[in-house]
């Protein structure tokens, strides 16, 4: 048996969401296409042909050769609007051993009676046909040829384990996600995984502070940053690389990958995809032209890095100028009162050695030290390095030459910087694993806007510490 997955055609509603291509739309934080592949595996299929037109590169990047699922994936192309059966008719002998044909944004929703090991026996016939979307399982050569020739087919009735849902609108997409978070996720578990009793799924490398309240059922993806005093759930699905700012409440919502949600917001019955907001209740969508409310954490990186460098330089110049006199005056005193500075050797840009002056905390609290740090004067020499192009303003915490050799070898890109997440109150990384998590997180979300956020948080954090002292 082989599978033909037709992902040509572009329904309008995913485009209005500014979401990823519809085959990669997340249902329960996993792309729709993955559920199709799992159905193929359950049916004992090894060879899969994907027919596509738009967004071919996205699909190919995601699915690759299919080895991840134990499948062999071949790709074909089709003009938009072509007869979906024409591709099958071109080489009917290909499908004589049986065919699974999936077309359009249809989710193979499982019922309670679905058993993966029985699917290859239980599923046969036209499982759904609605608004151009369909799932057809033809087992015998006769069934295949009747289907290919276009003989009329009727959807089979009864509980055979699947109750596919055609995603006809953003609302049905939202409802399907709600079904998954509200308990159906366990129907899609593969062996080796289990669901915790409290229905709270939290992905890898996601940081949640103690003051955030998580009310299950919730699903939170990988590499998310949840800020203080937020309330997440119940019935919230949050994708990967999502940043949620302080005091925001989210429930009954679907947040897609790479979204930023601003401070003190209330997100209820909504889909958010980057800066796009969709209100499920009133079926209204809009782009929020305001990065303080909603935004994207995954901007195009190529131009963004150059822009980050320019932005960093523009910020560093006036800040450094303001610090010249206070630094000149106050740096004398720590030197005089205790041996305040020590030199460390760090990895600079292009892994070049960088001698770095670090202020040491005195054994007993000293006003000068508090003032020095509170006014961020300890970063003054490093700001000069930003101006001379030897450091980034915001980025990775500069790594030690020897101690951090392993982490450096793991990072595909390295942006040694004056300010990093470890320097802010929100993302304090006390452990090496946190520093590693922050380093990878920054690689994904880096942008001029993220640098501005990081810089402003750093300044506020330092001034707060001064005030607290």
């Amino acid at each position, binding site marked *: 048996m082989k599978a033909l997955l037709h992902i040509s055609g572009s329904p309008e509603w995913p485009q209005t969401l500014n979401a990823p291509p519809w085959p990669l739309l997340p249902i329960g934080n996993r792309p729709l296409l993955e559920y199709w592949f799992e159905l193929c595996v359950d049916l004992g299929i090894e060879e899969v042909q994907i027919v596509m037109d738009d967004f071919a590169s996205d699909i190919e990047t995601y699915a690759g050769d299919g080895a991840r699922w134990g499948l062999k994936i071949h790709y074909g192309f089709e003009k938009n609007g072509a007869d979906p059966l024409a591709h099958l008719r071109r080489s009917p002998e290909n499908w004589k051993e049986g065919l699974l044909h999936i077309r359009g944004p249809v989710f193979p929703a499982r019922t309670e009676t679905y058993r993966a090991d029985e699917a290859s026996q239980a599923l046969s016939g036209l499982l759904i046909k609605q608004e151009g979307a369909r799932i057809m399982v033809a087992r015998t050569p006769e069934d295949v040829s009747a289907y290919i020739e276009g003989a009329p087919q009727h959807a089979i009735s009864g509980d055979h384990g699947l109750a596919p849902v055609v995603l006809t609108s953003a609302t049905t997409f939202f409802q399907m996600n709600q079904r998954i978070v509200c308990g159906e996720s366990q129907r899609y578990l593969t062996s080796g995984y289990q669901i915790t009793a409290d229905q709270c799924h939290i992905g890898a490398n996601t940081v949640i502070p103690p003051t955030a309240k998580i009310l299950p059922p919730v699903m939170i993806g990988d590499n998310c940053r949840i800020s203080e005093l937020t309330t997440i759930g119940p019935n919230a699905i949050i994708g990967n690389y999502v940043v949620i700012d302080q005091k925001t409440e989210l429930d009954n919502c679907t947040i897609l990958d790479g979204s930023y949600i*601003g401070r*003190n*917001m*209330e*997100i*209820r019955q*909504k889909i958010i995809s980057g800066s796009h*907001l969709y*209100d499920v209740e*009133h079926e*209204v969508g*809009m782009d*929020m*032209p*305001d990065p*303080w*409310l909603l935004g994207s954490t995954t901007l195009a990186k190529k131009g963004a890095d150059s822009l980050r460098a320019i932005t960093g330089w523009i910020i560093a110049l006036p800040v450094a100028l303001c610090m010249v006199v206070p630094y000149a005056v106050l740096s004398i005193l720590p030197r005089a009162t205790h041996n305040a500075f020590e030199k460390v050797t760090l990895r600079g840009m292009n892994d070049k050695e960088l001698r770095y002056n670090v202020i040491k905390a005195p054994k007993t609290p000293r006003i000068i030290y508090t003032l020095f740090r509170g006014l961020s004067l300890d970063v003054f020499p490093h700001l000069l390095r930003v101006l001379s192009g030897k450091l980034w303003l915001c980025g990775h915490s500069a790594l030690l030459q020897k101690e951090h050799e392993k982490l450096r070898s793991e990072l595909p890109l390295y942006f040694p910087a004056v300010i990093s997440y470890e320097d802010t109150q929100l993302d304090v990384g006390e452990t090496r694993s946190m520093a590693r998590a922050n380093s990878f997180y920054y690689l994904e979300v880096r942008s001029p806007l993220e640098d501005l956020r990081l810089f402003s948080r750093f300044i506020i954090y330092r001034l707060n510490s001064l005030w607290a002292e």
Partner: protein
Amino acid sequence: MEIKCETKEGLGVISLSGTLTAGVVDRLHDQFNTWYSNEDALSNLIVDMAGVESMDSSGLGALIGIMKKVAEKDVEMKIAALQDKTRLVFEITRAYKIFDIFDTVDEAARACA
């Protein structure tokens, strides 16, 4: 952005239309301040948002600024006739908890009576 400020029988009405974003809030402030400085007998103010197609946090901030200013003279401010998209901004920012919001200007006017 079109801004129209008028007084009808002691009721102030600011009618806005277009896009209420950072680029126009200064003009809104200026126009409002000029008009409001000559209005001593106002007891209620309605902001008619029927023509506002979209707004951002700056626009919302401008409305909060106006509300604070009129509250100094015990003038009550009401928001009327939000379009779907602008209503979303009030909803997600929790601004609906700060303002009295009405479906139409007439409803808001009746509430002032």
